[in-house]
């Protein structure tokens, strides 16, 4: 049964492995994945925990339905990129394979003296030497491990050189393109001398009500695939969003200098990938199949892989003034191999290119002509970041790089809670802006992005869905706090089940919802949580994450946006003149805290903690 999957605790200092049950009570309160991770991370780290020190813990938690329907997991730790909450979600094939070993959560503590990798082969757990893998990129690492284990089906999570060298925005990779990208979880792997985690699993899953579960899977799949959104994703993948962003004026061109580039964007829109793509592939258990596979010759040599996602195309395309799709594929491929998060990576590079343009840094310091769209220089800088060489060593520290640069550099750095601004510019879409400001892991669109607000739904339908007046347009402030709150809570629950954002309510209100998840959970596991209880579970997770960052000192003052969003109206294009009004923003925040049951300073109220059963965390 999925609910009998166990928890492994692995001490890399002492090389000890401990296996225990995950109680039904924990499952009912947090399900799995992101929820179960924060319940442990909160207790196992504290304010003085050094994210890159041996006392940080690395938690890998699988969604409860992994291996059955969909399959995603969260990697959580204190973040080296922000110093606050680190948490990143990944799909691909590893999460379901881990579930088949009978393991639901792995907690890694301490630090190995030498490089190692962890092999979980059903009931056998081995800590194996990895010195021979150190320095290899993420593809080479996975191929080499499969060869040495003589197991072509082994599924692997691993880091590349960026993680090894403690680049603060290093990712964890699996397969060609599945990445736990944000918040620097790759650097936590590196800090523990942990190169990879390997799963080989063949355990069957007992199902609570097989016939009901079968019917539910078929019905939910049918319902999901009827939505225009799932159909479009299955054809174009997430890059289809680039067109929307450009059309409505919320993409970032040259680090937020412009928010739309008209027809110039066509060269990097989803259709441009058709020339290279040979089909679509899916993560384990997902009927949507949203990523391209490509295998094509180019001016950069053979381009081979999967993806890229919209966020990666936009981060290494428009964000850096690069409108050449081949160069985008090439640069994103390099990031994936080196294990660099494309979103944060593109953000910090965008900042560096801005500083270069303004003459705040020069070629003497950078060793490279950091001009917009200079693909060669960007490529070289990526390698320098991963290896922490020269100027790359400075930029590898993310927002903390500002300390090593001229004072004026800080003025142009855009981040929220120490995590880089992204490839979109949210000045016109008010719900997006609020969601970035309040995200518990720092600047992140995936915590709440109210994508529904920008697609063409009749407003009265949206008002009914959110049970509130959500205004007449995405450009207004009305009801946006309600929308952000709805998605923050829903997404926290969905991440704990292991279902993807793109399959659940995100851009379509007819995608997988609370009712569907309640049925799936009950028929698969017997856990009988009602949609209302699932909502409360999502709130429990989100509030506990908030409590975690509150303990780190985060308050209302930090739930904000870069000054650029407030002070500089969009210069031209469809969003011309839009900016975030400070008074309106504060009003949204007030409403938002109220909805969560947090006080005016963003601190969860005592009665909220009692209601959610989180009292045990309040004294920590």
């Amino acid at each position, binding site marked *: 049964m999925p609910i009998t999957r166990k928890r492994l605790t692995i001490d890399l200092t002492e090389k000890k492995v401990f296996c225990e049950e995950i109680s039904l009570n924990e499952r009912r309160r947090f399900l799995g994945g992101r929820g179960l991770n924060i319940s442990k991370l909160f207790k196992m780290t504290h304010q003085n925990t050094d994210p890159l020190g041996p006392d940080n813990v690395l938690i890998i938690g699988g969604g409860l339905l992994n291996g059955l329907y969909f399959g995603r997991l969260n990697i959580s730790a204190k973040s080296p990129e922000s110093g606050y909450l680190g948490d990143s979600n990944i799909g691909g094939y590893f999460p379901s394979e881990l579930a088949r070993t009978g393991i639901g959560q792995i907690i890694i503590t301490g630090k190995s003296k030498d490089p190692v990798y962890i092999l979980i082969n059903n009931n056998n757990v081995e800590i194996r030497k990895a010195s021979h893998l150190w320095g290899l990129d993420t593809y080479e690492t996975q191929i080499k491990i499969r060869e040495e284990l003589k197991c072509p089906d082994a599924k692997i999570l691993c880091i590349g050189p960026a993680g090894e060298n403690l680049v603060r925005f290093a990712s964890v990779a699996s397969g060609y393109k599945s990445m736990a990208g944000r918040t620097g979880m790759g650097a936590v792997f590196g800090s523990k001398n942990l190169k990879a985690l390997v799963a080989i699993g063949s355990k069957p899953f007992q199902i609570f009500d097989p016939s009901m579960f*079968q019917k539910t899977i078929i019905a939910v799949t049918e319902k999901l695939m009827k939505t225009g959104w799932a159909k479009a994703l299955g054809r174009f993948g997430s890059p289809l969003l680039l067109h929307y962003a450009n059309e409505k004026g919320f993409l970032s061109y040259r680090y937020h200098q412009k928010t739309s580039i008209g027809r110039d964007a066509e060269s990097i829109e989803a259709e441009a990938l058709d020339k290279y793509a040979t089909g679509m592939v899916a993560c384990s258990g997902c009927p949507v*199949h949203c990523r391209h596979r490509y295998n094509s010759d180019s001016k950069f040599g053979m381009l081979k892989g999967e993806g890229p996602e919209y966020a990666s195309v936009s981060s290494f395309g428009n964000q850096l003034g690069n409108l050449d799709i081949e160069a985008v594929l090439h640069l994103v491929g390099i990031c994936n191999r080196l294990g660099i998060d494309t979103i944060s990576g593109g953000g910090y590079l965008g900042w560096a290119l801005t500083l270069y343009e303004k003459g705040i840094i020069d070629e003497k310091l950078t060793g490279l002509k950091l001009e917009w769209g200079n693909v060669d220089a960007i490529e070289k800088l990526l390698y320098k970041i991963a290896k922490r060489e020269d100027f790359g060593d400075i930029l590898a520290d993310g927002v903390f790089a500002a300390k090593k640069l001229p004072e004026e550099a800080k003025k142009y750095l855009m981040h929220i809670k120490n995590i880089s601004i992204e490839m979109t510019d949210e000045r016109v879409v008010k719900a997006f802006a609020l969601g970035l400001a309040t995200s518990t892991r720092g600047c992140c669109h995936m915590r709440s992005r109210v994508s529904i607000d920008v697609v063409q739904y009749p407003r009265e339908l949206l008002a009914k869905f959110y049970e509130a007046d959500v205004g007449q347009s995405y450009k207004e402030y009305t009801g946006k706090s309600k929308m952000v709150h709805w998605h923050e809570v829903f997404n926290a629950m969905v991440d704990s089940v292991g279902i993807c954002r793109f399959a659940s309510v995100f851009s379509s209100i007819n995608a997988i919802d609370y009712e569907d998840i309640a049925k799936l959970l009950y028929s698969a596991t017997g856990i009988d949580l009602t949609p209302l209880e699932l909502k409360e579970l999502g709130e429990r997770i989100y509030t506990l994450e908030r409590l975690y960052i509150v303990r780190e000192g985060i308050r209302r003052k930090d739930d904000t946006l870069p000054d650029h969003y407030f002070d500089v109206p969009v210069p031209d294009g469809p969003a011309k003149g839009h900016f975030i009004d400070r008074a309106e923003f504060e009003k949204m925040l007030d409403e938002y805290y109220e909805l969560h049951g947090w006080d005016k300073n963003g601190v969860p109220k005592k009665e909220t903690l009692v209601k959610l059963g989180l009292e045990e965390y309040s004294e920590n």
Partner: protein
Amino acid sequence: MKIKVDEKKCTGCGLCEVICSLSHMGIVDRNQSAIRIIMDDLGDSIHKPRVCRQCIKMKCLEDDLGKNPSLNVEEERKKFIWESIKRYELCPFEGCFAYNDKVYHCNLCDGEPQCVKVCTQGALTITE
């Protein structure tokens, strides 16, 4: 009737394996499924579903027919589990699968193949 496979369309999601074992065995286990995807996730990403081709002349049954000429071929066709490992060895197409001394064979779910229902990309289709 048989299940036609278009490898180029397979996304590698594995839902066919999930639903097959679920509907026939009441559990989820790719080892107890009569359809399998050979994954190629670090190669060309072309995944290959394998399932019984419903051959008119069943080479898989040759050995058993030799031993028992009165074996009812049409009855065997309808079975999901075969006890004879030899059938797995004789199939020239990797169309059935051995696991724990049993062979898992596609019996077309009594005319309503469940795997086809969850293959949203259409890599699996029904043909006569």
